[in-house]
């Protein structure tokens, strides 16, 4: 009986950094260093949207990246989360913020399951288009029924102050720390999840649904679970977007463009990687700012802001295509390669 020749893996020779060290360092820096060095502008205009969108992308990645169910309705679940949190906070006296957030996520999860039901019958583009129903229905319902926005005449509502156990997360740094904590906890959860049996089931359903079913993977339950967990996380991302970042909640901000934006994040960052969501969000949030700043620095007032923004739209579209062609595994894979190469160079 022939034995399989042991393949020589390159990393078996090199010294190994524990896998948890890098993320831990990032988290420590994010908590311990960033609040002291980042200007309010960086926090308010870059880090807060970055955190909220990263989290939304982590959520979508579970559904689309891991479980293979393409969704174009992410923004709707963000909206559900934001409005649910607003209403729980408003209507239940003395509800702790943590509970409010969890309930908001649970509400989004429930709605996610409802809109995930077509996935039991539909696949691919048919499913993707059907998730648009969520997008339009949720937006319609939130504007239609004034109750959701506490009958505010304009439909735009103000976020309540963020306070946990008497500690108020006011000001830019406070809201940043609040958002960062939520994102850290949920990312850790997602990281564990995708490595568990449930995570393996997601990938099995994605890669070969029939084989998964014959193997005894509960395919329908797995799909609905993916919808539920994904919506839960995206819903909480919506809470961060509304409560920590913009401080107002309005349905228009959760439109189809936002759904596409989140989808772009996971494509560019890398499907089915947790890190990818953060890489992608960083690019999508920071890149336009750099581009417009660079543009106005280079061209001055030759072009008005419109031209710059138009070019930016083109560049983002082109980036997506370039990534799909050249780096289908996204920034996360690119990063790995860079690290590997750097590694290779330092070693004799």
């Amino acid at each position, binding site marked *: 009986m*022939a034995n399989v020749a042991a393949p020589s893996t390159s990393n078996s020779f090199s010294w190994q950094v524990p896998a948890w060290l890098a993320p831990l360092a990032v988290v420590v820096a994010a908590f311990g260093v960033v609040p002291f060095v980042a200007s309010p502008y960086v926090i308010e205009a870059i880090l807060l949207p970055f955190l909220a969108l990263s989290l939304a992308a982590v959520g979508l990645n579970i559904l689309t990246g891991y479980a293979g169910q393409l969704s174009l309705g992410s923004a709707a679940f963000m909206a559900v989360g934001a409005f649910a949190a607003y209403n729980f906070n408003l209507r239940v006296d003395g509800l702790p913020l943590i509970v409010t957030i969890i309930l908001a996520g649970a509400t989004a999860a429930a709605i996610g399951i409802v809109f995930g039901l077509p996935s039991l019958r539909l696949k691919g583009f048919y499913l993707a288009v059907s998730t648009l129903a969520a997008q339009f229905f949720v937006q319609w319902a939130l504007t239609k029924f004034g109750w959701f926005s506490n009958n505010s005449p304009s439909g735009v509502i103000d976020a309540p102050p963020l306070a946990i156990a008497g500690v108020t997360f006011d000001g830019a740094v406070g809201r940043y720390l609040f958002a960062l904590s939520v994102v850290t906890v949920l990312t850790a959860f997602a990281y564990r999840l995708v490595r*568990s049996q449930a995570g393996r089931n997601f990938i*099995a359903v994605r890669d070969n649904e029939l084989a998964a079913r014959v193997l005894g993977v509960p395919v329908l339950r797995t799909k609905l*679970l993916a919808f539920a*967990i994904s919506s839960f996380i995206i819903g909480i991302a919506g809470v961060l977007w509304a409560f920590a970042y913009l401080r107002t909640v309005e349905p228009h901000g959760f439109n189809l463009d936002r759904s596409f934006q989140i989808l772009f994040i996971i494509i560019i960052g890398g499907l089915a990687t947790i890190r990818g969501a953060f890489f992608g969000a960083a690019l999508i949030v920071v890149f336009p700012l750099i581009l417009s700043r660079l543009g106005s620095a280079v061209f001055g007032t030759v072009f008005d802001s419109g031209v710059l923004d138009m070019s930016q739209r083109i560049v983002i579209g082109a980036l997506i295509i370039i990534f799909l062609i050249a780096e289908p595994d996204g920034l996360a894979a690119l990063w790995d390669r860079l690290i590997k190469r750097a590694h290779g160079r330092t070693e004799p």
Partner: protein
Amino acid sequence: MTRHLTDVGSIDSSSTQAAGPDVASLLQGYDPGKPATEPILHLSGISLAFGGVTALTGVDLRVEKGEIRAVIGPNGAGKSSLINVISGVYSPDKGTIGFAGQTYAAMRANRVAHLGLARTYQNLALFKGLSVIENIQTGFAPRVRSNFVEQTFAIGRARAEERSSRQAAEDAIALLELTAVRDRPVSTLAYGLQKRVELARALVSRPVLLLLDEPMAGMPAGEKQELAAYIRTARDSLGTTVILIEHDIGVVMGLSDRIAVLDYGHKIADGTPQEIQANQAVIDAYLGIAHPEDDAVAGEARA
């Protein structure tokens, strides 16, 4: 070989409990070579057609516990349709399927695993995004009772389940000698290795009945013999009954206990390899006909 047999012995004793009482009782009656009185699988009068094109007509098939049962036939004879009927991918138009003491009009794909059935595919159906061991662990799915919260936080039932699925996967890896590649992404493996991973994935849940859909298609001769040996190991050490669909007569003759021959959806012969070799109908319908050796690419419908 001996080393593995001892390994397998230890697996058996440790996993009887996990396998569940029904499987255990089924295994107890196992006695290789001698057909038991009650067949483990009994197809009778199975007919199947796709929009007027007949795939199977009145096929009967008895499979005894512990045997390696081959189904052969030329291209388009209905072999894959038969395996898809047994594994619940297709529902037959007529006929019944008797399995483990129950009779069904049709199997349901999402239930077969729980009944103790596992299969491989003519065109590999591995989960490309998972590593070798993760692929194999997926085969443990029918035993999983814990929910995602337990699994995520490794608490409650999930803790024990993860341990036993890991153990079962490690056992299968050892049995099929995949240790060197256990953590590699499955998509990076050579074709023959992938076939073996698929076999391991099917075996990990200790199936009562294992369906192999052209496991050797597209393999060089040497690898075929190797895989045949692994299949025999699996049967010998785990007591799994095997139904094998294969093109390559030579491999089948050496590997299987009994052979059924399909042609144009009809069963034209059934018997021991020696009987089949001597059967004139088979020689006419099958052996005399030249056929393309490799049809792994132009595969039959998997979906």
